[in-house]
Structures are given as structure tokens and as C-alpha cells.
């Protein structure tokens, strides 16, 4: 087991390298170019043609170098023009091509928003999914089960953006109330900040809870039919012990996987909620960068998200072994 963990951790680095190389390359093949946009905006200030300006910008940003050299420079394994090394290895994510601000600064300003939103959302999702899922499994085909499942299907089916828009529009019309407009950092005003985050986060949580709840219910039903559960019942154990201690843990593996797949939302954010509730989070940064073809920001976000996902997947895999001691990794 220990050997397995060490091997997995060691493999994170090549996987990261592989991912960043692919993103670094493909983002440059996506049609449309930031340089042309920048050049067309710079035209008119002088006599030079857009092509010359574009050439100049490319040179300034180091984009006239071969791609492998650009990658190594970004990684910090190749000298920059001034002879220094500055890249990921030195903890420098580079600068945005568009705003010229350091990417770390851009991300640091936005990541707390996504993390706060994500944590509240995931907590909400679990708080809905587990009780409802377990209840509707142990009371299969009762009214409570139907209500619970209907809620889950509602959560999965209703488009989040629609619900979000309705939640903004109708309270504003009926009661003249709306969530705070501009982003308030949590350190400045805790109450206002929570007021602002709670609606989008609860909505996200509701949407995410659907799958988890269905998965919990189905897996619980599978496990509750097993012989050892019947044995537990016939021993005269209380319902809570049978359900929580004997059934739940054995039903959890696919549920944990689903939760693990949802975790990256904490760092990646969701574009739609951020857009509608006017929260400048990571999702929006990503979309803006993609539509501007701001390569360096895309690569920067990519490496952060990739690290989180790789760790989340590793933790998920290790949780299997904790949940079910029969699971062995070789």
C-alpha cells in the first residue's frame, strides 16, 4: 500500500508535465489570435502596418521563439531573454498577455471566491444528498422516497442558469430585494459576503446533490439486499447501526467517486453562477482568457486545476481502501 501511494505521488509530476504540454500546444492551434486583436487596436498610433506591430508584439512576448523553447521558458528550465530563469519551477506563472499583470496576482484575487462558493456548494450538496439518499433507500417506495427522488430529479433536470435568473428576477420584482451587487471580500464584511454567496452556492449545491443522492440511494438499495445485512437485522441490531455501520460504508465507493469528480468545482468555479451573480471567480477568468486566447493565463489556470484534480483523484482512490479493506492496490 505504501509503495502504491509513493508510486502514485511520483506519477503526479509526469502527468502534470504531459497535461501542460498538451494544453500549451493545443491552445496555440485554436483558431483566432490575441496578437491580431492587439495589433489591430494598436494601429493608428504610427505609420507602421498591423503586420509589423504584430511581429513586434510577438517578439516582445517571446512568441516568435519555437514552441518547445517557449514551453521550457514557461516551465523555468530555459533562460529568458535577460539570462535568468523564471517559470513554474521558480514559482512564477508569468504574465497575462492581455493585461500584462502577473498571473499569480490575477488568480490569487479570484481563487477565494471560487473556493468559498465551491465549499458551500459541496457542503450543501452532501447535506442534501446523504440524508435524502439514505432515507429513500431504507424507506423504498414510500411517500418519503417519492418526494426525495422527485427532489433529486428536479435538481438534476432544472437548468441552473434558469433557476438563478428566476431567483434574481422575482424577488426584485415582488419585494424589491436582490443579492448584493458588487463583490464584497469575506475579510471586509462577513455578513454581507455570506449574503452574497449563499444563494449561488446553495443553488450549485442543489444541482450537484442530484447525482450524489441518486447514487447513494441506488448503492444503498444494492447493499441492503445483501446477506450480511439480513444477518445484522436478525441479530437484532438497531436500524441506525445496520444502516450506518453495516450498509453505508459498503455503499460508499461509487458515491465517493462522484463526489471526487465534483470536487474540482472548488477551484475551477462555475461560469454561469459567477456570471449571473456577478462574482469574479476562476470560471470567469478562464472563459475570458479562452475567448481572448490569453495563452499564459490558460496555462496558469490549467496547472492549478490539474494539481487539484490529480490530488483529488488520488485521495478518492485511497478512500476506497479505507472504506473497504478488501480493496488492495498492488
Amino acid at each position, binding site marked *: 500500500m505504501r509503495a502504491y501511494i509513493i*508510486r502514485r505521488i511520483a*506519477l503526479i509530476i509526469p*502527468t*502534470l508535465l*504531459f*497535461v501542460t504540454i*498538451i*494544453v500549451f500546444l493545443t491552445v496555440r*492551434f*485554436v483558431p483566432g489570435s490575441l496578437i491580431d486583436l492587439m495589433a489591430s487596436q494598436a494601429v493608428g498610433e504610427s505609420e507602421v502596418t498591423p503586420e509589423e506591430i504584430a511581429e513586434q508584439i510577438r517578439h516582445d512576448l517571446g512568441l516568435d521563439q519555437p514552441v518547445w523553447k517557449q514551453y521550457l521558458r514557461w516551465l523555468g528550465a530555459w533562460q529568458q531573454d535577460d539570462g535568468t530563469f523564471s517559470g513554474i519551477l521558480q514559482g512564477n506563472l508569468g504574465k497575462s498577455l492581455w493585461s500584462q499583470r502577473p498571473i499569480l496576482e490575477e488568480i490569487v484575487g479570484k481563487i477565494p471566491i471560487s473556493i468559498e462558493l465551491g465549499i458551500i456548494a459541496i457542503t450543501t450538496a452532501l447535506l442534501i444528498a446523504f440524508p435524502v439518499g439514505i432515507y429513500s433507500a431504507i424507506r423504498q*417506495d414510500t411517500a418519503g422516497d*417519492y418526494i426525495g*427522488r422527485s427532489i433529486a*430529479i428536479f435538481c*438534476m433536470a432544472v*437548468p441552473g*442558469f434558469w433557476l438563478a*435568473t428566476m431567483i*434574481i*428576477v422575482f424577488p*426584485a*420584482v415582488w419585494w*424589491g*430585494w*436582490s*443579492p448584493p*451587487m458588487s463583490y464584497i471580500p469575506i475579510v471586509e464584511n462577513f455578513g454581507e459576503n455570506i449574503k452574497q454567496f449563499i444563494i449561488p452556492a446553495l443553488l450549485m449545491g442543489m444541482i450537484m446533490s442530484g*447525482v450524489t443522492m*441518486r*447514487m447513494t440511494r*441506488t*448503492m444503498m*438499495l444494492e447493499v441492503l439486499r445483501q446477506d450480511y445485512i439480513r444477518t445484522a437485522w436478525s441479530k437484532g441490531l438497531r436500524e441506525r447501526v445496520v444502516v450506518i455501520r453495516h450498509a453505508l460504508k*459498503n455503499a460508499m*465507493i*461509487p458515491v465517493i*467517486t462522484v463526489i471526487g*469528480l465534483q470536487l474540482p468545482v472548488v477551484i*475551477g468555479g462555475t*461560469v*454561469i453562477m459567477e456570471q*449571473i451573480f*456577478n462574482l469574479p471567480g476562476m470560471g470567469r477568468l*478562464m*472563459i475570458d482568457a*479562452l*475567448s481572448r486566447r490569453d495563452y499564459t493565463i*490558460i496555462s496558469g*489556470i*490549467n496547472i492549478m*486545476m*490539474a494539481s487539484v*484534480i*490529480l490530488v483529488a*483523484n488520488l485521495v478518492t482512490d485511497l478512500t*476506497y481502501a479505507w472504506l*473497504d479493506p478488501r*480493496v*488492495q492496490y*498492488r
Partner: protein
Amino acid sequence: MAEGTTGLYAGAITEEKKRNFWMDLLTRLIREKPLGTVGAAIVLILLLVGIFAHWIAPYGYNDTWVGGRLDASSAEHWMGTDQSGRDLLSRIVYGAQISMYVGLGVSALSTVISALIGLISGFLGGKIDIIIQRFVDAWMCFPGIFIMITLMALVGPGIAQVIIVLGLLYGITGSRTVRGAVIGIRENVYIEAARSIGCPTGSLIIRHILPNVMAPMIIVFTSRMGAAILAEALRHPGAVPQLGRYAQSWTPIYARGDAISRMARFVPEYRRLGDKHVRGCPERPAGPETEGRTGALLGSKEEITETADEGLDTGSGKLKTSNAT
């Protein structure tokens, strides 16, 4: 003799059972799984509407009615017309076609991919699992929208391409769920028993593992369906222009990219409305522009023609003239 009569009797029972099998199944379904039956009926109806869209829709999906723009429902247009004067009912019916194709296609494809990767990787384990899972990890590390843009740029627009791209996207990610379930049951005694009597790996996977991971796979399948329909609909115009044609699906009616951004543009106005009432909002007095826009979303027709035009890409020229006359 007694034997003969019982045989006859049994035969009669099976015959009767056979005759009523479908009715029997239906009544049992309705009695025992009412929610599922309702869901199946809805899906079936939508599927039929999609398949026979050509015969059901009263008009073509792009037939424009000059002058009849954003009409309320009438005998001619049961659901009224959209911003460009097209019959909404027809567009919803044609939209059902695309949405059902994409929904079913993507969930079927992604489930097959998930099952393949998950079963092989989870059951074989060891080095094979480690290697396959690193590719799955890598795939998950690419942001979904990034994969969509790049792949759609490579394969070009079209429903089949949307299905393939979304199917890959969901299928590879979803394989982790299947793999997890396989790992969970791999160490069961019956698997060991099957292996010890010399059951080859292939039939072990298909006969003994697959039936036991069906439950999570069905959940993956069903949850993908809605997600795929929404993902197909949620093509942000700036970000993913390549993701399919958007003339035909449900998108134009209820979730087209620019409809969302248009809604999103109204949102600040509503917030302003809210702020005005709650806090007096001194820096943003309610100008006529604010009032107009908020009115627009609530259904005042004149205002919509003013404000919504900016976001529209089709037919606005024609409509303007029709408005003037």
C-alpha cells in the same frame, strides 16, 4: 389422467399469461414504479415528437412571419412566435429532435466508453490500472470547455460531432465511477471462486463484474442525458462558436447562448431595481433606461424590440422594417 389435466391446466395458465404479458407489465409498472413510468412516458413522447418532428410541427423551424414577432399564443401559433417571428411550437418540436438525439446519443456513447475503460482498468488493476488512470487523470485536467473548443475545431460542426465530443468528454470522466465500483466488488469471494474454476478474464468481466456494476452505470447514464442536452444548449457564443449549428435545437428557444447573455445583461438591472428599493441606491437613480429594460423582460413588447435587438444575430433587419410599417 390426473397428470394430463394438470398439464393442460398449466398450459392454459401460461397461455393466458403470455396473452396479457404487455398489459400485465404495464399495470405492474404503473403500480410499482409510478415515478419511473411517468418519466419513461415523458421521454417516449419527446422521442416520438423528435422522430416525427417533420409531421408534427405546423411550420418549418425557420419560417419567419413578417410582422408577427413575439406574438402571444393564437390559433395560428399555439405558442406564439419568437423574437424573429418564427413559430415557437414548431421550433420546440424540431428542437426536441436535436435534444433527444444528443441526449440519448451522448449518454449511450459515454456509458459504453465509461464501461470499457472502467471495467478494464478497474478489474485488471496493477500497472495497467495505473497507466490507464494517468491518462484519465490527464483528460480530466483539461477544462471541459477547452476540450470542446479544440475538438470541435478539429471535427467541425454537426450533431454527430457534438455527440462524439460530449460522449468522449463525459465517458472518460465517468469511467472513474465504473472503475470505483469494479474495484469495490473485485475482491468479492464469488469473483475469486469464478477465477479459481478457470473462468477466463473476458467472461469474468462480462458475466460476473458487469452485472454487479450495472446500478452505478445506470445512474451515470441517466444523469448524463440531462447534462448532455444542457451542454449542447449552453454553447456560449463567444467561447464555443464551433459546437454545432444552433439553428435547430432547443437552444434558440430556451437556452441559446446569447439568450443567456441577454438574460445576464438584464440581471444587473434587476439588481439595481432591488438596490433602489432597499437602500435608496443614491449613485444609480432609476433612469428611463433602467425602467425600460426591467419592463422589457416582463413582457412589454416595445421595449424588447429596443433592447433585445443588440443581442440578435438573425432577422433583425427584416423585423425592423416590419415594425416600421
